[in-house]
């Protein structure tokens, strides 16, 4: 059955015509062109499709688009504060080498954000719990955990500027790493 829904995704309002049985994940990817959330298992196990719905962590593959009527959905594409200012978690992921193939990264970031919003200086255990539903096959998680642990260091840092971040050279890196310890 076709229905119209209104929702906001990453701050942008949409009026969409969807089928009742379409998942949010398919609507984001195929209809809104927001392919950041990935379809890794399509059954709610891998965490690659994690998004936020009204501020709560959700798996887009197990959410009906119809459920999102009136909701505010945030995907990884909406994580950066502006095109010139990354979210501290993003900067930290880049900086600490927390992304390899990158397929788990969007979901990992959204799961980490759910924690960061509550507690920007979390313990290891809290991090393991927060990303416990996000499978990464490349990194062995160490650099992901480290990036989440130290993300707060990037708050208000000039390295939130993507350009500055990509040009950060060795010395600055060392300095920041020191700071974060």
């Amino acid at each position: 059955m076709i229905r119209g829904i209104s929702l906001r995704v990453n701050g942008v309002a949409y009026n969409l015509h969807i089928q009742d049985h379409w998942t949010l994940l398919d609507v984001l990817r195929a209809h809104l062109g927001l392919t950041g959330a990935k379809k890794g298992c399509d059954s709610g196990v891998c965490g690659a499709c994690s998004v936020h719905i009204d501020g709560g962590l959700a798996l887009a593959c197990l959410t009906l688009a119809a459920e999102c009527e009136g909701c505010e959905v945030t995907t990884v594409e909406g994580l950066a504060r502006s095109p010139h200012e990354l979210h501290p978690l993003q900067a930290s992921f880049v900086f600490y080498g927390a992304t390899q193939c990158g397929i788990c990264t969007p979901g990992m970031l959204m799961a980490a954000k759910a924690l960061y919003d509550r507690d920007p200086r979390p313990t290891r255990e809290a991090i393991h719990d927060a990303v416990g539903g996000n499978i990464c096959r490349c990194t062995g998680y160490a650099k992901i955990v480290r990036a989440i642990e130290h993300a707060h260091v990037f708050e208000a840092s000039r390295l939130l500027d993507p350009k500055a971040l990509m040009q950060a050279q060795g010395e600055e890196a060392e300095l920041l790493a020191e700071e974060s310890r």
Partner: protein
Amino acid sequence: MSLPAFKYLRPDSLEEAIFLLGSHPGEIMIMAGGTDLLVSLKQKLFQTARVLDVKAVSELRGLEFTETDGLKVGAATRLSDLAADKLVQTRYTGVAEAAQSVGAAAHRSMGTLGGNVCLNNRCWYFNQSPTWRTTFGSCYRLGGESCLVAKGTARCRAAYCGDTAPSLLVMGAQVKIGGPTGFRTVPLDELYTGDGKASIRLAPGELVVEITVPIPEVGVGTAYRKYRLRDSIDFPLAGAACAIGLDDEGTCTHARIALTAVGSRPERCPQAEDVLAGRKLTAGVISEAVEAARSQARPLRTTVMPPPYRRTMVALMVRNAIRAAASRCESGWEEYPS
């Protein structure tokens, strides 16, 4: 894997929900968090013309505690809210532990207490895609002649794998059920049929509205222990909940034990409870109770890990849950050898 076409209904009042349920008997399924139902629908395990989303029903959401009636939890209350509630953590520790142990963070922020209590029974010959199921044909639950786990038997052995039910059972929880003819409240135990195929005893048009948990008896300690191979995502391979009350002399005045993941329903362990009642909880007494629970548990090959191993884990989880619950008793507890 696409979802089959269905009509999505989202009532915002209980009255409307019950009306909708009653209007389409046999052609409507209830969804709360969706973490279980939508996977099953993708796998075409069920056919339904309608999905009734109860998340917007305000009467089904929220926690309420009074010193007279105890804890009332709306069926559509998120597991993460339950687990994070300070009062639940202190007064209903085992329930909080169970809620916190479900799946991973996203499953808890989506999943609801009612959904977990009514979780569909699981089996690896059942929870598979349609393509997969063509090899051996349908299992008994899907219309085949025989169960593929216990071959030659016409009974479904799928296991209840929710974490919260045992923790609620040991608290003497009740379920408020709504339906076309009004409301009724039954002990949680009676919600389960023990039949893997139709595991929840709800009449057509009925839904679980609320779970009520009485005020814990004074000084009682509770705990839930879950065995799984990874610390997140996994369903339990064995789970045990326990509530223990001790008097000042250390004699057990109250003992409740319940298991999950090892049978077609969450089950109390009356023999094990009887072992504990009226005795001091020495290591020997606890072992006796553990043995009783072990011999009651009959896990089958519905998932990975051989059943004998899982029985051993049942025993271990029961022992750990007894110890943890006893140590949380107000009167304090220390294990003495027998």
